[in-house]
């Protein structure tokens, strides 16, 4: 069964900490994405990547950075965590072509609380 695995289901971090959220996919997908989900705001795209060492800003990149050193791994970095970054973070991947048939495959999410 193909998977997108996020390293942590729940995280509690302090304001100002540097936070790493890890995501690994085993489907050999080219594309990877980071979203956050908040009540009433739906899924908002933070960053995405179409290839190794490539990254593009999404709709809400402020306060975040990403790293993609290997095809299967896409990391989201909160440089200095703030309370407004408390959220559910979702990683997704998709093949390089034909997202129509496959859509995105999402991980189970990481619930991050910044205190």
């Amino acid at each position, binding site marked *: 069964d193909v998977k*997108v695995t996020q390293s942590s*289901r729940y995280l509690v971090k302090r304001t100002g900490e540097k936070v790493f959220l890890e995501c690994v996919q085993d489907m050999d997908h*080219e*594309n990877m994405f980071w*979203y956050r989900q908040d009540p*009433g*705001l*739906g*899924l908002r*795209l933070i960053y*995405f990547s*179409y290839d190794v060492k490539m990254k593009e800003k999404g709709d809400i990149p402020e306060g975040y950075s990403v790293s993609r050193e290997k095809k299967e791994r896409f990391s989201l970095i909160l440089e200095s965590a703030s309370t407004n970054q408390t959220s559910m973070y*979702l*990683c*997704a991947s*998709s093949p*390089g*072509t*034909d*997202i*129509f*048939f*496959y*859509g*995105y*495959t*999402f*991980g*189970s*999410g990481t*619930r991050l609380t910044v205190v």
Partner: protein
Amino acid sequence: DQQVKQNSPSLSVQEGRISILNCDYTNSMFDYFLWYKKYPAEGPTFLISISSIKDKNEDGRFTVFLNKSAKHLSLHIVPSQPGDSAVYFCAASVGRNRDDKIIFGKGTRLHILP
């Protein structure tokens, strides 16, 4: 500016009846539409999709209808079951290739009542 709109934050339906979730979009360039289902503490899962050359796509209990002139699509679930209680996201894409990102709506929470 929201390109994909789900105007009902929540919907309650009796078990066994039809659930209809609605979605409107503003970008006439969208050619592909998808529905995702999300349970609490899990990632969204792909449910069903439709391309703009069709007006209907059916998969078991799930049917998606597309009205391009009205820029409206809907997801019908018949009959509704308790396991259908979840958040449903409508999504759209201009194309089907790697550069064509999927744009998501804010979601509708469906409650199936016993």
